[in-house]
């Protein structure tokens, strides 16, 4: 009974491909560029080009498409739902009609566009998180945010919070699984009953989970203080991020493509 086996959104798959080895800052910015582009373009060819770009990224990263699709599985209903809404709710030239429902040409196009937008969006962000370890991801974000220090943005603190949050997601999942198993062994039943009972059944999980999480937070704070942690001032990194020639090249290509696609479509 591996309850959380299916959660893969935001998961990192270790590897040693070109994409894995790019600087995280470059990857984050590239990802951002593609996403902005997604919302600017309004022609089919634009989506096709962006889609092919991201898909070739996935191929280069040597990550099995299974992982990419596993991340998509949770979101596919949202995509379908929004697509249907657009399909039926847009006014315009009617091309198809059943009973009170009508499908318009504009609706069809809008629906398809929205679906491709969301689809490529998820693919892009999945590619980012699948190929970038949480540590280098937050490192990259910290460095990027530190450019905004002049407006007093606490870059280090934000990054530290993200690091800790990311660090504890698997721990908490593991713990939830353990507590669930323990309560099941004590006679709890999480699989049957109506919604009221099911909600009540969460108490034996949530109370111990919170008790442990608060205790852990306390211990972590003390441990950090004991190690002399005092914020980001003058802190150095074990792994210094460095921009190599390939990062610059990668970024130039992405930017160029983004601009071309953005202008043309």
């Amino acid at each position, binding site marked *: *009974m591996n309850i959380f086996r299916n959660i893969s959104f935001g998961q990192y*798959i270790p590897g040693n491909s070109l994409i894995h080895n790019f600087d995280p800052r470059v990857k984050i910015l590239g990802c951002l560029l593609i996403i902005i582009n997604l919302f600017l373009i309004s022609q089919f060819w634009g989506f096709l080009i962006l889609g092919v770009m991201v898909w070739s990224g996935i191929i280069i990263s040597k990550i099995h498409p299974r992982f990419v699709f596993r991340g998509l599985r949770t979101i596919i209903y949202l995509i379908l739902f929004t697509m249907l809404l657009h399909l039926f709710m847009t006014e315009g030239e009617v091309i198809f009609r059943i009973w009170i429902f009508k499908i318009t040409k504009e609706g069809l196009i809008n629906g398809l566009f929205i679906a491709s937008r969301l689809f490529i969006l998820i693919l892009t962000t999945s590619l980012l998180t699948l190929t970038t370890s949480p540590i280098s991801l937050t490192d990259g974000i910290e460095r990027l945010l530190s450019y905004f220090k002049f407006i007093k943005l606490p870059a280090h603190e934000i990054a530290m919070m993200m690091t800790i949050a990311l660090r504890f997601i698997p721990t908490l999942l593991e713990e939830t699984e353990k507590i669930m*198993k*323990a309560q099941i062994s*004590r*006679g*709890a*039943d999480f699989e049957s009953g109506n919604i009221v009972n099911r909600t009540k059944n969460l108490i*034996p999980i949530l109370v*111990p989970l919170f008790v442990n999480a608060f205790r852990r937070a306390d211990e972590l704070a003390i441990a950090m203080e004991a190690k002399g942690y005092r914020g980001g001032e003058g802190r150095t990194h074990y792994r210094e991020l460095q921009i190599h020639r390939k990062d610059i090249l990668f970024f130039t290509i992405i930017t160029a493509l983004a601009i071309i696609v953005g202008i043309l479509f």
Partner: protein
Amino acid sequence: MFIRLENVNYTYNLNMPFETVALNNINLEIEKGEFIGLIGHTGCGKTTLIQHLNGLLTPTSGKVYIEGIDICQKGVNLKLIRQKIGLVFQYPENQLFEENIFEEIAFGPRKLGLTEEEIKKRVYEVLEMVDLDVSYTERSPFSLSGGEMRRIAIASILSLKPQMLVLDEPTANLDPQGRSKILSEIKNIHDHYGITILLVSHNMEKIAEMVERLLVMNKGKIILDGSPREIFSRHAEQLIDIGLGLPQVTQCFYELKKRGKSIKEGVLTVEEAEREVLKKIKALANNLQK
């Protein structure tokens, strides 16, 4: 036959890059009333193995039979299995959540749908089994000491009236007093209430003197299965080889034997060692007199 595991394999994260084999072809039979110890390194698959006993995990391949029923089949009443085989997890104090200890222990019986009267009876019964006073029922479980919390957690499993109790390192992180208290209660639960016990532990000394049968796991396999005396005498070398070692007195006698002294092997407790040494001294004294 109470429990039978047949060629059980279990792999975590099957078909993923982080795939790890946790159990490798486990065959195991357990009879009612046995007192079994399970030792092995951290990560050797002990916890994974015990989770198969009450259907929390289903084997990647292989079969688990409880009283002749294959529990991996669809439609098996796992609730009933889990009531028969009580599983106490490591650090069970982390699962306490009720307002007071009465409710904590009554959680399981309540889920079984017993009457209020029967529930009350069971709560007092199991409190006695773990040797805690009735006055505890009003207190919050979070106000107790670590050892007491753990005994409450064990009591909350016992209140299901299991036929077998599986305990995953019940003495981890306890002070010596709490440790011996828990262990003597477990012994009592076995001896007086006839409950089958499977005890996972790192504590060689205690295991050696308590259990009737010892299982040794290494890298997902059960490598040794027999009485502690047999395992600690005949397979001492193997145990040292895989880094598990022996109980201190056993180790001491083993080293003496290795240096050519004619001394009994497989001595398990300090008392036994004392007797052996006295015997040797007496024989020596007798020889000198002659």
